């Protein structure tokens, strides 16, 4: 049997290429996931926390499935399992029953409640329901925190940042104490290795850090000798409650920096903790900014280890610049990741010809323009994009390489160019959790991946089969 190898997106059912105006109304192969997924990911980064989605169970199951295929770890997310009646009459009964069952089975230290489209639309009063539940149980049992995540108002990225903010609002107690060696780090949606590296960096600056969320061990743990109801690790509630005592907050992600209601700006406004809004530390310039902020927060110069790493990174840039310089890249993913990657690409001489995200982001063009050297006049900037739009642009602009999640594979295959996997989800490779890309060391690893992908494709394309490049 012959299997049609073409890209499913460009073919009619009879196999011809399609022509005519591009469909615009429907989303074709979305470049985003839904809001509760982001919230669930944050809740997975809090110690003893069980995520709970208020709505029909399909949403929870799909989100679990998706996270499991990326992290390859248990991801238990409870649901209030709405039936038709609940959708009509409200989900209060299911909610209470669901929470009872979760407490009974999981004995969580916290339940992170996120809404779904359905419960948002029927207008279930989450806060009221939580209060009723807690009153009825006289405050016994774990605390519940709520984040509102209707998927029709944002993407997984929004859900992620909202959940961080709600956790801080709920638990960061006001205080007069300041612990000068304490720092809060609010990371964007990074890999487990990235989060671990951030912690290492803090130690080098002799800082004690609260990283929220920290799913580095809950979503990449060791092999178990016994069954953990909830994966060990994560930021503890005590740590969150002490966040107001920190000397500073480092908030990572460009879109966070322009968001007046971000978690970091809330901590600054309401709890008096200075907030440094930073980009995603990929590449030398953005990492420099990050380390400068670390130096300020810690009042320490850059540790020698990091200075060495920076030196090696510059050296690597030099060694491989000819292989990458002048190449053109298509980048897609979470809005902040794309800005970080675009900054990195442009500093090694790769032109980011397409920058795409599925989110609708305020000032995204400006954010990109601030990081891409030489202006963005010739850069196709697509926010609110889907993979069909990304593919159309790529067919015209013919990039040499794609940076993004596994979802870029069909396009890479069609254009016969390499895909360097980064972001979420990566479900066709092993080790997404372990891919390091932040700081000098992470950039070095990512840089090698990019350069080697280009070398490999050069080798594959050559008629000679050069074994020495």
């Amino acid at each position: 049997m012959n299997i049609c190898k073409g890209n499913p997106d460009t073919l009619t059912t009879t196999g011809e290429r399609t022509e005519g105006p591009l469909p615009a109304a429907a989303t074709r192969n979305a470049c985003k996931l839904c809001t509760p997924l982001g919230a669930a990911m944050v809740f997975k980064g809090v110690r003893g926390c069980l995520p709970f989605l208020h709505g029909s169970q399909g949403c929870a199951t799909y989100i679990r499935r998706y996270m499991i295929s990326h992290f390859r770890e248990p991801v238990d997310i409870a649901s209030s399992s709405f039936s038709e009646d609940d959708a009509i009459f409200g989900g209060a009964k299911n909610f209470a029953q669901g929470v009872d069952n979760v407490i009974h089975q999981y004995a969580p230290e916290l339940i992170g409640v996120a809404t779904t489209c359905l419960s948002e639309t029927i207008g279930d009063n989450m806060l009221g329901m939580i209060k009723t539940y807690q009153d009825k149980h006289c405050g016994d049992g774990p605390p519940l925190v709520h984040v509102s995540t209707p998927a029709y108002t944002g993407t997984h990225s929004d859900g992620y940042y909202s959940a961080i903010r709600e956790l801080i609002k709920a638990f960061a107690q006001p205080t007069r104490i300041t612990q000068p060696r304490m720092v809060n780090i609010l990371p964007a949606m990074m890999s487990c290795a990235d989060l671990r590296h951030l912690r290492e960096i803090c130690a080098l600056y002799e800082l004690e850090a609260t990283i929220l969320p920290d799913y580095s061990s809950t979503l990449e743990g060791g092999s178990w000798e016994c069954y953990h109801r909830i994966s060990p690790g994560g930021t503890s509630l005590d740590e969150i409650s002490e966040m107001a005592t920190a000397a500073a907050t480092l908030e990572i992600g460009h879109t966070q920096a322009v968001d007046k209601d971000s978690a970091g700006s809330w901590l600054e406004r309401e709890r008096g903790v200075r907030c440094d809004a930073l980009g995603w530390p990929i590449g030398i310039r953005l990492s420099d900014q990050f380390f400068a902020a670390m130096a300020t927060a810690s009042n320490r110069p850059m540790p020698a280890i990091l200075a060495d790493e920076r030196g090696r990174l510059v050296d690597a840039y030099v060694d491989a610049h000819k292989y990458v310089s002048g190449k053109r890249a298509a980048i897609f993913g979470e809005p902040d990741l794309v800005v970080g990657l675009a900054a990195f690409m442009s500093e090694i001489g790769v032109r980011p010809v397409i920058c795409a995200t599925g989110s609708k982001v305020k000032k995204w063009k400006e954010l990109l323009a601030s990081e891409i050297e030489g202006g963005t006049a010739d850069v196709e900037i697509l926010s609110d994009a889907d993979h069909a739009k990304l593919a159309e642009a790529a067919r015209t602009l013919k990039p040499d390489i794609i940076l993004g999640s596994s979802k870029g594979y069909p396009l890479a295959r069609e254009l016969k160019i390499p895909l360097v996997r980064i972001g979420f989800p990566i479900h066709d490779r092993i080790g997404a959790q372990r891919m390091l890309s932040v700081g000098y060391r992470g950039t070095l690893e990512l840089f090698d991946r990019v350069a080697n992908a280009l070398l490999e494709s050069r080798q594959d394309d050559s008629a000679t089969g050069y074994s020495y490049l």
Partner: protein
Amino acid sequence: MNSVNTPSSIRVLEERSGQVWTKGSGKEFSCDKKSAAGSVTQRACAFCGSRVVLYPIADALHIVHGPIGCAVYNWDIRGSLSSGPQLNRNSFSTDLAEKEVIFGGEKKLKASLIELIHYYRPKATFVYSTCIVGLIGDDVEAVCKQVTKETGIDCIQVDSPGFKGTKKSGYQAACEAAYKLVGTGDTSGISPYSINLLGEFNIAGEAWMIRGYFEKIGIQVVSTITGDGRVDDLRRCHGAKLNLVQCSGSMTHLSKLLKDNYGIPMERVSFFGFEDTARAIYTAAEHFGDPELLRRAEELVREEISLYAPKLKQYKKRLKGKKAALYVGGAFKAFSLVLALRALGMKTVLAGTQTGSAEDYEQLKEICDQGTVIVDDSNPLELAKFVLEKDVDLFIGGVKERPIAFKLGVAFCDHNHERKIPLAGFEGMLHFAEEVANSACSPVWKFAPRRQVKALRLPGSDESANQDPGTLASKGGAA
């Protein structure tokens, strides 16, 4: 610490106690219930069921009407193959935004459909309504009618909002939708010895193998709707003389409609394992009552088995006496797996399904050994509990079950729609044995903390560490 040192410390939720049963216990068993809130069910939703059944129709346009999640989590994640068009591998969605949720999404749906149909020229279009649409009350039916009229392409609503129930209700909705096309095609050229293969999903090309068996013995396969499916085959499948239904849950309803309205008889079959595959082929051959057909069937079965059976021996030797747990979507798969594992010398100590019916479970109880635990609509904690209690060597399930096994140092075999290796038919049995043996006999398990024996203590760890509770859980704790 939030851990479970001994399996007995995981308790089954009271509401679920009837859904967990041990053979020989004499207790009542209940199933066919909606999932308990907060139980972390492994089940998905009705919409998921309808997608599973219809999406392999490769030359149809499938569009999900609702917010983005429901569509995007389904984008090309399955292992069902098409020999031609690939339109089904896209994820199309109306991706409703807030204002459409408030003011209704009909306009966007219509605009989306018209554009997509003109661009991709599908043979038909299926529109799946998700929870939100069920709630805001869009008249999807009316939009479909209009679009059909304007474009000349059949546009069919699949009424499957997730909250309508489990996957099963989605199967029903899918069958209703598919049935709307049945009877609209030309049945000329259909042989008196002809079948429809229903509920075969062509994972990794399995439907092609099975189709090959039938064609070899002289039976025409009119349609394989749920695997490498085509709209035109669906339109004329009422011309076939027999329906072979594999995944009974998903396709029983369609075959019932075909029986009631076209008088086509139905037989339940399975193509998993030598025994079941042979039986399925004989069932069809016997149905047509032609001695020549039967002779050819016997010849085929003999040939295939003599080709693959000897190769199984090496795996059987390695797998003898190992214990398996299985948790799968439908009951039919569970029956076949129990038998296939037995054929490999393995024992099934835990068997469960997401959506089995009372009738299914009766059959499952019968074929299982004494002491086997049977679970309906289980959750990760229960599954982990029994994996530990029964000290299993192999788990068979899908993506969501995999980490439960792996974390506890247990081999795993993927047996759902996402796998990429054909496990059906005679040849598939060999793949199955190979996959099971390669995983279950992998040397990596010796490093799993739960499996570590004295000789393999961590370098530098002291003797007392031998008493770790995990070891107790796996050995001493085994009931």
